[in-house]
């Protein structure tokens, strides 16, 4: 239960000449819910993109279950057990809700060209298993009755939940949520907090989330890490971080 599953050491990342992350050390233990906060432009999403392989770090190393993943591509990292959602919601708009989630099962299925054309027994079996998993995920995020809608026709909150279901369908051990509560009303936010708790309890996932809504972060995270100008300035329990002077300064400016 306390095994470290993700470990990042001395991560640096620069865009052109701009250093987005400087010497960041970071680790997550199995089963934790960790919050990642910081002012806009602090490098939170960049860190996510490094974990999921969308960028390769300029310097430093990322280990997932003791396997070096820095430099791997996203499609190589996802099957290892890291899934994510996107800050700006990236669903497959012209696909049905069910098909969106089925795409999540892509890396857990094997059917090739031959199996797809002939519809071999094993490919049929695999497809029905994928459907079953996808349906379960949809029910879990409470979208079971919308499975035939186009994803682009869903409401904002539903889209956020669909993105989570799609990520869960890849069967990850670590789930990265990029501002899941952004743009939600208080009721939706409350439901989301409950959903995230359920994901850990019922599905046994480790969760790292970026969030600006402090009620969400402080409410569900066991540990919070704070980034500012590409550096990690604090880390600890929500209580500790809230009292940390560097964090207060970062959020309220030098005069505070």
């Amino acid at each position, binding site marked *: 239960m306390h095994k470290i599953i993700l470990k990042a050491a001395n991560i640096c990342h620069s865009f052109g000449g701009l250093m987005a992350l400087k010497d960041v050390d970071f680790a997550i233990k199995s089963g934790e819910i960790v919050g990642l906060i910081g002012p806009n432009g602090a490098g939170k999403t960049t860190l996510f993109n490094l974990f999921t392989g*969308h960028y390769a770090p300029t310097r430093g190393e990322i280990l997932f279950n003791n396997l070096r993943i820095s430099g791997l591509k996203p*499609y190589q990292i996802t099957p290892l057990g890291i899934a994510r959602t996107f800050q700006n919601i*990236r669903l*497959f*708009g*012209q696909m049905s809700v069910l098909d969106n989630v089925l*795409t999540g099962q892509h890396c857990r299925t094997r059917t090739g060209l031959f199996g*797809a*054309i002939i519809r071999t027994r094993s490919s049929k079996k695999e497809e029905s298993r994928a459907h079953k998993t996808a349906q379960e995920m949809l029910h879990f995020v409470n979208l079971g009755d919308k499975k035939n809608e186009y994803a682009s026709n869903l409401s904002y909150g539903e889209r956020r939940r669909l993105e989570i279901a799609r990520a869960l369908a890849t069967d990850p051990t670590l789930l990265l949520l990029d501002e899941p509560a952004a743009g939600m009303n208080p009721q939706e936010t409350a439901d989301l907090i409950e959903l995230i708790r359920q994901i850990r309890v019922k599905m046994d996932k480790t969760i790292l989330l970026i969030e600006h809504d402090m009620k969400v972060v402080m409410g569900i995270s066991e540990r919070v890490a704070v980034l500012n100008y590409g550096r990690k300035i604090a880390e600890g329990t929500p209580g500790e971080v809230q009292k940390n002077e560097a964090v207060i300064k970062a959020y309220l400016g030098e005069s505070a």
Partner: protein
Amino acid sequence: MIGPYYLQLLILIGINTIMATSLNLILGYTGQLSIGHAAFMSLGAYGSALVTLHFGFPFLVSLLCGALFAAFFGIIIGLPTLRLKGDYLAIATLGLGEIVRIVFLNLELTGGAVGLRGIPKKTTLLWVVLAVLFTVFILSRIIRSRIGRAFIAIREDETAADSMGINSTYYKTLCFGVGAFFAGLGGGLFAHYMRYLNPNSFGFMRSIEHLCMVVLGGLGNMWGAFIGATILTVTPELLRTVADLRLLIYGAVLVLMMRVRPQGLLGQPLRNGIPLLGRFFQQARPKL
């Protein structure tokens, strides 16, 4: 039963349907803008015609050889170029199509600019119908599978597809290979129907014609490709009485069509009036 004129028309509709559906897989389902489809057709046409002429292979085997030859080049061409997106991919495929044409124009084996003559006539309406059904059947099976979902996911959002564990380079290349295979099949049928091949019948304008069939019918719609192919094969024939005005009208119709119904005849208009297309295509230019 059917007069020779209508027979020819039906055969050409069939071959064009194969061309349009195979391009539809690349453009409509996977969202990769390729304007070099005629090159794959020519590879299949020359490939199958040459094995017929030189080795005397049976018709079906020649067709298969031509299609595999085209698929092989589809993959070779696809691997490096599919890293490019949108307009850049379009221009690269256009350039590659031109290179293929120029190579055929200068090879001795293919008869160069004089063309390749004396191909036996083997293509009949029955074969064409069977080939169309075969193409549509295989492509539908692929589209309604895990692979098809991967194609559509790439069209909708390549970054998100990547993070679902979809190796987009692999699937784009696969899609190019399959598309080229069926384009090659169409080319083989064409070669054994026309009995004569000239590289200039597979130029840039031919690729554009295929593109227009797919767009006219509606992207990402199997029936759309068939309807587009039928209309664009029959219309020039109907306009035969005004032969000189044919292409003039063709051009004007394309412009008007894009104004009136840019999503094609069977495409689904969405809330914001944007057709069923991928992220690249959907991106309307910013409001002015």
